[in-house]
């Protein structure tokens, strides 16, 4: 499947479920499609940033949820322990603390030739639900 077709299938699928308009297009060219949206986290007033990244030269398409920022460095070890536990428990989400101290969850959708936009969009929702379930425990570590 060509990169152009992959991109158009994804944007069509997002449009079909009336979700495309909520995304900002950060990059859209021959090499990359980078979409970003800010969404409320389930049952809270807090927000997360969801990014979708497709690249022409990679077999992986990414969904990334930027959940919160760790400000108090003393809690880094406790946070990393919690994220390790989530990584052990979660089937599809990978939790990390990045260099800028943002707590992220991500999904790698692997497929060099086969890209199913419907499946990919479904994963955005599945990942969002998983991240929302983890969020209260992350907040506990940030605020306790």
């Amino acid at each position, binding site marked *: 499947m060509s990169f152009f077709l992959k991109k158009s299938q994804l944007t069509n699928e997002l449009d079909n479920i009336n979700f495309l308009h909520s995304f900002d297009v950060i990059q859209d060219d021959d090499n990359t499609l980078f979409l970003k949206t800010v969404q409320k986290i389930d049952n809270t007033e807090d927000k997360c940033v969801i990014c979708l990244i497709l690249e022409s030269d990679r077999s992986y398409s990414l969904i990334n949820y930027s959940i919160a920022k760790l400000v108090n460095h003393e809690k880094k070890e406790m946070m990393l322990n919690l994220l390790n536990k989530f990584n052990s428990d979660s089937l599809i989400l*990978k939790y990390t603390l990045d260099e800028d101290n943002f707590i992220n969850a991500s999904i790698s*959708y692997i497929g060099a*030739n086969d890209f199913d936009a419907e499946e990919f969009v479904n994963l955005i929702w599945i990942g969002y639900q998983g991240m929302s379930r983890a969020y209260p425990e992350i907040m506990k570590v940030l605020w306790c």
Partner: protein
Amino acid sequence: MDFEKRKFEVMDLLRDADLLESFDILEDDKQALLLRTYQQIDESKAHCIISIIMSNDSAYSLIYYIFAKLAECDKKASIIEFLNNLNNNNVLMKYYIDDENHIVGNINYIGLDKNFNSSEFVSLMEIGFSEIIDTYAKINKLI
């Protein structure tokens, strides 16, 4: 692609690559396929357990590499930080320490029916194993 065909294709590709005979078949029925092999990962005869898990009712086909065990708990924090760095820089693999202090690498291949590509799945297992060998060399110095 139905589950029987998915299983058949994966086992066929493993056979073609002369890998199937190294796997123990722990489960092979209408619900699941569970394969496990022990592979040497360095000259000291350290081993990695590779498990392949496919389920009839799940879009996730899983590859697990258990490649080390943390014996000293005082090193757990530094290993978890190291694994977090690996996770940040790696798209394919997810690393963690499990409840029994095993250091685990995990690949989740998502795909049902027409989106399951068996040759891609078997290639991922091999690519993942190469990565585990590199990671083991680094982590061995820490533990």
